[in-house]
C-alpha cells in the first residue's frame, strides 16, 4: 500500500474510533448508552487484545503458555503505577492533567508503553530458559510465573497489596481500548504474512524440519513470546485504569489465563478472526445468560459450560478452525502458471499418475 493510502486508512480508523468513543462514553444528543453495556463493550475490546496476542504464541508458534494473566498483571501494575505516581508530572510537561485532553493522551501513551516494556521484559526472562526446551515445560513455567507474580504483588504496599491498587485513575476509554485492539490485530496479522510468521508455523508443525531449513527455533519462539507478553501488558494497562479499583491480584490469577485460552480454543486456535470471535462471545455470553439466574440462581454457569461442551463436540476445531475471514475468500483461488521458459526437471509425472490410478484400483 502506498504511504498516502496507508496514512489515510489510519486517519479514517482513528476518526471512527473517536466517534465510537464519543457515542459510547458520552452519548449523542439525548441518546445515552446503558453504562452496563458500555462496560461490556470495553471488556470485549480488552479481551480481543488478550486473545489475539495469546494466539501468537499458542496458536501460531504452537507453544502452550498458560501465564497470560501474569503478563497482564505485570503490564497493568507497571502502567497504573506510572500514571498514579508520575502521571501528574508527565501531564504537566504538556501543560495538562492526566484526566483530560492532551495531558491524558500523553499519560496514557507513556503508561501503556511502560506496561508493554515491563511485560515484554518479564516475557524475556520467562521465555529464554523455558523455550529452549520442547514440550510441556513452557506450560509449567508460565503457570508458576503467574502465581509468583500474584504473590509478589500481594506483598508490595506501594501498589496496594491484597486490597488492590485503589489509587488507580480511570483514564482508559473506548478509544484507547479499540485502538489497541486494532493495533494488536494488525501486528499479529502482519506477522502471520511474513518470513517470521512462516518460521513460527514451521516450528509449530515440525521443529526438527524447521531447524534443518535454517530457522533459529529458540530465537523465534522467544521473540514471539515477548511480543505476545508485551501486548498482554498493554491490555493489562487498559484494564488497570478502566475503573476505580480493578487491579486486584485475585482478578488476575490462573482462572483469567484459562479464560483467555478458552477464547482462542473456542474461536479456532491459530485464527485471528477466531480469537476475535471467541473473545467477543465469551465476554458477552456469561452476561447474556444472567437473565436465567433470576429464576434459577447458578443456572447461568451451568448453561455456559453446556454451551462450551456442545461447541467442542460439534466444532472441535473451534468456530473458525485455522481459517481467517478475508477478502481472498471472494477472489478466485488457484496457482498461477509457472513463468514461461522455466526449465523443468525430468519427472516421474507419468509414474505418479500410474501410481495413483493403481492405488485407486487396489483400494
Amino acid at each position, binding site marked *: 500500500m502506498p504511504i498516502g493510502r496507508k496514512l489515510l486508512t489510519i486517519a479514517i480508523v482513528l476518526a471512527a474510533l473517536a466517534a465510537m468513543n464519543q457515542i459510547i462514553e458520552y452519548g449523542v444528543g439525548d441518546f445515552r448508552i446503558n453504562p452496563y453495556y458500555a462496560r461490556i463493550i470495553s471488556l470485549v475490546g480488552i479481551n480481543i487484545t488478550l486473545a489475539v496476542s495469546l494466539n501468537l504464541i499458542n496458536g501460531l508458534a504452537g507453544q502452550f503458555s498458560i501465564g497470560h494473566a501474569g503478563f497482564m498483571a505485570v503490564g497493568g501494575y507497571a502502567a497504573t503505577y506510572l500514571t498514579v505516581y508520575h502521571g501528574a508530572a508527565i501531564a504537566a510537561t504538556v501543560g495538562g492533567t492526566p484526566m483530560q485532553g492532551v495531558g491524558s493522551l500523553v499519560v496514557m501513551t507513556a503508561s501503556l508503553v511502560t506496561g508493554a516494556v515491563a511485560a515484554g521484559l518479564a516475557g524475556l526472562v520467562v521465555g529464554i530458559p523455558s523455550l529452549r526446551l520442547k514440550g510441556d515445560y513452557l506450560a509449567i513455567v508460565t503457570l508458576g510465573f503467574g502465581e509468583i507474580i500474584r504473590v509478589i504483588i500481594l506483598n508490595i504496599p506501594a501498589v496496594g497489596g491484597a486490597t488492590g491498587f485503589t489509587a488507580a485513575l480511570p483514564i482508559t476509554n473506548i478509544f484507547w481500548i479499540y485502538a489497541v485492539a486494532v493495533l494488536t490485530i494488525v501486528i499479529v496479522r*502482519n506477522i502471520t504474512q511474513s518470513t517470521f510468521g512462516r*518460521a513460527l508455523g514451521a516450528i509449530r508443525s515440525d521443529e526438527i524440519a*524447521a531447524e534443518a531449513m535454517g530457522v533459529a527455533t529458540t530465537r523465534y519462539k522467544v521473540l514471539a513470546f515477548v511480543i505476545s507478553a508485551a501486548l498482554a501488558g498493554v491490555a493489562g494497562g487498559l484494564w488497570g485504569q478502566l475503573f476505580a479499583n480493578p487491579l486486584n491480584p485475585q482478578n488476575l490469577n490462573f482462572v483469567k489465563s484459562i479464560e483467555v485460552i478458552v477464547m482462542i480454543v473456542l474461536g479456532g486456535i491459530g485464527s485471528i478472526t477466531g480469537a476475535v470471535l471467541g473473545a467477543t462471545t465469551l465476554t458477552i455470553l456469561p452476561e447474556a445468560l444472567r437473565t436465567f439466574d433470576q429464576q434459577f440462581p447458578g443456572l447461568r454457569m451451568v448453561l455456559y459450560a453446556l454451551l462450551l461442551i456442545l461447541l467442542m463436540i460439534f466444532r472441535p476445531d473451534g468456530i473458525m478452525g485455522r481459517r481467517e475471514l478475508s477478502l481472498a475468500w471472494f477472489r478466485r483461488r488457484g496457482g498461477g502458471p509457472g513463468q514461461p521458459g522455466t526449465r523443468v526437471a*525430468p519427472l516421474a509425472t507419468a*509414474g505418479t499418475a500410474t501410481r495413483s490410478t493403481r492405488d485407486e484400483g487396489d483400494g
Partner: protein
Amino acid sequence: MASPVSSVLLDVREVTRRFGGLTAVKHLNLQVAAGTLYGLIGPNGAGKTTVFNLLTGVYAPSEGDIWFDGRRMHGQRPWQIATHGIARTFQNIRLFADMTVLENVMTAQHLRTSQMIGDAIIGSRRHHREERETRDRARHLLAIFGLEALADEPATSLPYGSQRRLEIARALATSPKLLLLDEPAAGMNPQESVALMDTIRWIRDEFSLTILLVEHNMKVVMGICETIHVIDHGESIATGSPADIQANPRVIEAYLGVG
C-alpha cells in the same frame, strides 16, 4: 585454518559417535569433492542415518571433526549448518503438515530473506517486495518439479511421490551447496525410481550442487553415484566407483553374509 584440499567440499575426519555404550559411528573419514554425486550405503543399522544427523548438527561428534566449505562445523546448531549451505530431506518425509505446498517452499527461503520483523509489522514497501520475490521464487521451484498446479493444496494431501519431490524443492529453496538426500527412493516403484535418478542428476547439474545420498535401492545408487562409500557396523569398509564397490569382497560379505 582451512580444509587442506580446496576442492573437497565436505571433509569428515575421524568422526566417532557414541550413544552410551553403543558406538554408532567409528573413526569415519569421508571426503566429498565439490560437484560429485556421492553415495553412502550400508546394511540396516550400519549407522547411515547417524552420519546424516552428525552432518546436519542434530548430533555432535563424540570425537573427530567435520569441515564444510573450509569451516569447522563443530558445535553448530542445525539451523546454523543450514545457513552455511547444507540442506537435507528426511527418510520419513517431514513436510510442514498444516501448510500449503507453496508455503512449505516459501518457509524454506527463510535464510534468503532479510527477516526484518519491524518491516513486517509495519508492512513496509520493502517487506511487500520481498514477499513477492519469495512467492515468485517458490512458484518457480514448484514449476521445476511439476507441482505448480498444486501450490495451494495442503502439503500432506499430495501423493507420496510428489511429497518426496516437494521435500527436495523445499531443501533447494534454502540455496544449499550440499544437498543430503536420506533414502529418496524409499517407497517408490521401479518406474518412479528411474525418473528419480534422472531428477537427481538434473538437479545436480542445474543447481551446481554436490549431492550426498543415503539409499537402500542399489539400482539407484549404482546408477547415479560417482563415488560410493560403504559402512557397516559404524565402520568404513570400502570407498570407490560403483564398479569397484560391486566387486569388493568385503561389501559382498557385509550384504550377503559369509557362507
